[in-house]
């Protein structure tokens, strides 16, 4: 029997990988992919707790997270297309017109 802490440690590792990816990458699309890694880490955590605490609530939350991830990908990629059309760039440090 795998202990719950193994799943929690795995999810922490994946979450930090995604967070570091958001911080260090310059390509906006890869930044969005790192956000997907973080959402997946949260999903592992929720499903593991749902399994070990005998409740369906975690699986429902994971399902809703997947739906939100789909919406986030659609809107984020549409924004990238708009910015790319105007500036021909997907680097996050070139997209700084809203910076004050």
């Amino acid at each position, binding site marked *: 029997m795998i202990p719950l*802490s193994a799943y929690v440690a795995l999810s922490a590792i994946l979450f930090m990988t*995604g967070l570091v990816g958001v911080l260090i990458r310059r390509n906006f*699309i890869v930044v969005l992919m790192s956000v997907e890694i973080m959402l997946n880490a949260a999903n592992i955590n929720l499903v*593991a707790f749902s399994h070990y605490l005998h409740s369906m609530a975690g699986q429902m939350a994971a399902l809703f997270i997947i739906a939100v991830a789909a919406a986030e990908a659609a809107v984020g990629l*549409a924004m990238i297309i708009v910015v790319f059309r105007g500036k021909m760039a997907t680097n996050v440090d070139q997209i700084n017109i809203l910076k004050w």
Partner: protein
Amino acid sequence: MMWLLFIYFATVSIVAGVLTVALRNAVYCALALLTLLLHVAGLFVLLNAEFLFAVQIIVYAGAILILYLFVLMLMNLKTEEQHLHKKYAFLLFAGTGVFGELLILLLQSPYDGAVGTATPDVILQTGPSHAIGITMFSDYLLLFEVIGIFLLGAVIGAIVLAKTPAKADPQDPAHIPMP
């Protein structure tokens, strides 16, 4: 056997996650993300969540990742010399520090709480998909409707954002030019 599968899925997930963050070409990053998603789906099977396994493969690997690949192919980006941030060593250090503290806190936690009624025996009587369907359409019905409206809004927003702006027509007085 469970341990073997868990170690395989966990190792490949972590390696694929690191590759997603570290690889230079964005298309390779997307393929590493695909590997990560498929192995996380395998972890869901180990946790008796077959419905989520199917949703993960169909929605994540099938729909979301294809969307990413479409946009990547559409833009036809050149691989850059510098794909990481200039000060990435500091950020890596900060991330590792936060991760160490997180891991210490997690491994000290007791992990107990109120145990629910959906034990594996109860779920296996009718099947996991039946159990999750009953839960979704009884306790979480309002949230289910809200997520439907939310997805509709997201789709409309994405279409409006990505639409090609109309050419300004000076002959048309009703036309309001886009800034």
